[in-house]
């Protein structure tokens, strides 16, 4: 029997001219799907940022009334004052949208879809149809989440962690009516969408790499997506299970998470024997790996940007890969550090504390490798490089904050305070945001064939990173002063009176941060149509996507035979008038060093 597919998959596909709908809406092309994800994610980020504005207006100026907002949002701002239930819904939706519909979409599904096939030399994803399905299920889930603002009682208000009984009992908080149900359904769709896209990434990395592209020749970006996708696939089902059980508790009268003897708002519930802690275990079994699903690709992206701007190979490539693997494995067994004071056994707390601290080792090694990659380089401080340095900086400070929270004894005072808020914003908020901006500036020419504006980009960096750092660095110390998170105002307590000025500074910086994102929007849209035309390899980089045209053709690499001969960090070599050799340069022309 002859082999049907000896050529690279997708290579033998014919490309008849497709109509607009098939090309840009229901496209099977991983590049289009990737860009669809990125655009959807960025639009969701605007929603998330608008919600952040409302949060910071309330916390910075708790006594003020907002007549304009009262007109725009008559329900949430009756009489010009933000309603507490609206505040909680806004906080919940800000977290949910930013974690799941901005970061996961742009960074994991968006860049992952766009980059992984290009960087491993594949013509498309392993399962293009599943990929398209993934995007449309994902878009549906995002729309559903937005729609929950408009139902009776408003959007879910039990926090993005949705702890029952608050999230299980409709009368516990207004958002726990229809809003919470939609939240759970939307999460189920999100997980289905993520599963399809994760399967695709893993299968693509496993089995559709170009000839010569061994695992040890994959860029760190691909490695990070590979590990992150495996993590997601293994961890997400736990939330599916938990969401199904919570839906039954809410609508079928079961008692998975609801104990006996609840009296909510004077009403006696008939449930018995359920365990609210069970939800927390299931949620964090997903939730902790999820933060690595977000942060690993961010680190991978920065690791691929840095060498192109230092003109020097990355430091400790293999070591970094092992760190990614180790962190991925460890992240599955440390979820309990979110629950030190939840009432679980103190011995379990000791285990989770010690296990969590072991993550320090691979993560520090990874960070040191990134830092050492800058040493001795001939640095060109382009916009992608600026944001990559910001990734490194926030990863460092956020990681050090993790030492406090993973430590059960310190966590006793700091858990559920603004220290936590500051910490996770630095990590899954900041590292990922900086990597998103760095990655967009870096790959924009590949995606759209035009360069983004360098001057606006630099201004945007200064006005984004600086306030971002100040906001979330200060929030760590608000936590040390004891300020609990998810508070509608800090006015009710004497011990929080001194945080007044800090909250004012944080809110002011937040306004600068959010307003300056208009620079990015302008830059993005303007460059899309008016940017300087981009060369195929504007950054003189080595990975495979830069060896094809900008933007790449439908099958990524045209008819040319694609063979990989070297690792992705061949910088600083003699290659004619160039100081680098891309992965396709044969060993005869430039010696292979790894």
């Amino acid at each position, binding site marked *: 029997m002859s082999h049907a597919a000896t050529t690279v998959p997708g290579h033998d596909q014919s490309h008849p001219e497709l109509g607009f709908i098939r090309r840009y809406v229901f496209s099977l092309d991983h590049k289009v799907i990737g860009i669809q994800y990125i655009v959807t994610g960025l639009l969701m980020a605007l929603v998330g940022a608008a919600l952040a504005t409302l949060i910071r207006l309330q916390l910075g100026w708790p006594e003020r009334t907002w007549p304009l907002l009262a007109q725009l949002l008559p329900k949430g701002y009756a009489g010009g004052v933000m309603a507490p239930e609206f505040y*909680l819904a806004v906080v919940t939706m800000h977290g949910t949208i930013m974690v799941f519909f901005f970061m996961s979409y742009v960074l994991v599904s968006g860049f992952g879809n766009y980059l992984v096939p290009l960087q491993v030399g594949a013509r498309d994803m392993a399962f293009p149809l599943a990929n398209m399905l993934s995007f449309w299920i994902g878009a549906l889930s995002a729309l559903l989440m937005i729609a929950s603002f408009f139902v009776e009682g408003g959007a879910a208000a039990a926090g993005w962690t949705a702890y029952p009984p*608050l999230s299980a*009992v409709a009368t*516990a908080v207004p958002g726990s009516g229809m809003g919470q149900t939609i939240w759970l359904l939307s999460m189920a769709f999100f997980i289905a969408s993520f599963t399809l896209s994760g399967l695709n990434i893993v299968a693509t990395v496993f089995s559709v790499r170009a000839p010569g592209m061994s695992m040890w020749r994959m860029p760190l970006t691909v490695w990070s997506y590979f590990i992150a996708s495996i993590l997601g696939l293994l961890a997400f089902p736990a939330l599916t299970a938990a969401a199904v059980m919570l839906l039954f508790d809410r609508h079928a009268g079961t008692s998975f998470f609801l*104990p006996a*003897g609840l*009296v909510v*708002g*004077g009403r*006696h519930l008939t449930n018995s024997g359920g365990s*609210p*802690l069970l939800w927390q275990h299931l949620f964090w079994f997903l939730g902790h790996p999820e933060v690595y699903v977000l942060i690993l690709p961010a680190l991978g992206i920065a690791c691929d940007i840095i060498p192109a701007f230092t003109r020097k190979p990355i*430091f400790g490539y293999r*070591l970094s890969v092992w760190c990614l693997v180790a962190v991925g494995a460890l992240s599955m067994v440390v979820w309990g550090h979110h629950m030190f*004071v939840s*009432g679980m056994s*103190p011995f379990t*707390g000791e285990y989770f504390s*010690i296990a969590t*601290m072991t993550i320090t*080792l*691979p993560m*520090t090694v990874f960070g*040191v490798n990134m*830092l050492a990659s*800058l040493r*001795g*380089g*001939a640095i060109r*401080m382009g916009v992608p490089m600026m944001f990559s*340095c910001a990734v490194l*900086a926030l990863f460092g*400070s956020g990681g050090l*904050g993790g*030492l*406090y929270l*993973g*430590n*059960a*004894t310190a966590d*006793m*005072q700091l*858990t*559920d*305070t603004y220290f936590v808020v500051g910490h996770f914003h630095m990590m899954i908020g900041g590292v990922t945001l900086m990597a998103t901006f760095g990655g967009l500036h870096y790959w924009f020419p590949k995606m759209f064939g035009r360069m983004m504006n360098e001057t606006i980009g*630099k201004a945007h960096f200064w006005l984004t990173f*600086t306030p971002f750092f100040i906001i979330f*660095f*200060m929030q760590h*110390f608000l936590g*040390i*002063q*004891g300020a*609990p*998170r*998810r*508070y509608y105002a800090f006015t009710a307590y004497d*011990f929080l009176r001194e945080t007044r000025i800090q909250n004012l500074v944080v809110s002011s910086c937040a306004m600068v941060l959010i307003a300056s994102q208009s620079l990015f929007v302008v830059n993005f849209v303007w460059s899309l149509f008016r940017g300087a035309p981009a060369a195929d390899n504007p950054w003189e980089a080595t990975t495979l996507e830069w060896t094809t045209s900008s933007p790449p053709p439908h099958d990524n690499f045209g008819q040319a035979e694609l063979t990989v001969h070297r690792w992705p960090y061949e910088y600083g*070599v003699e290659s004619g008038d160039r100081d680098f050799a891309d992965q396709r340069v044969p060993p005869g022309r430039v010696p292979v060093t*790894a």
Partner: protein
Amino acid sequence: MSTQTSVFHSSTVALLFAGLGLGGAWYGASIVMPSLASRHGAGIDSMLSYLLVTTGILFVAGYCALAWFIWTGARRRRIDQRLTRRRTEWLVSGALGLAVGLIAEGGVLAIGMPVWSEYFDATPPADAVTVEITAQQFLWNVRYPGADGQFGRNSAAAMDDVSNPLGLDRADPAGRDDVVTQNVMAVPLGRAVRLRLRSKDVIHSFFLPNFRVKQDIVPGMTPEVVFFPTREGSFEIACSELCGLAHYRMRGFFDVLSPAAFDRWLAEQATPTAGGPR
């Protein structure tokens, strides 16, 4: 972009990181925690101080190294050294990784765990003041067992927000001398405090910032907390787990009084309606 402006631009970025590192440390050093008022809290504070010092040094060192590499890198035309030997890579990163790992793990094992075990393993002394806290949206029901040291029976079925928020069984003789208050509690200085925590509706978290006490109250569970106040004063109770609309003002008062003042206070609370809510 000309080389000169490029060097200038990179240098400003280097200075930004150095400035944020040094400025951050300066700001951080100026922050104080809520004043300490419990014995085990000293252990938690030393854990935090250890972390603030070690991570503070690592933070400043890291940001300055980043700034230095950018500063010098921007002035370099040719790279210094292309590849490092793999053994050197493992040694450098491995050593630094191990060092930070040891700082973290060492802190947990040497300082953290003893405090943690002392706090959770503490058997309440015989003279400990036992208080039952029943959290509900959005207040703290406080109950003292009274002279007999026994709490009267109560049940969820009998709970009524207006007439009997704790669902007390009025027929139980052990409950006759129980003292019930809302949002206000006091303890005498010099004795251990033993709190029995319960919740009627959703998860709350009993947070005494000055005492370094924080315990989630998951409905269906009755966690206990034991600690020793070290000074007299009036302190605040906060809820630190999202519990609904008025989470941000679920405020209680926790007074540490002299033994005599405490007895007076308890007697005052008991007189109006013994065994029932006020």
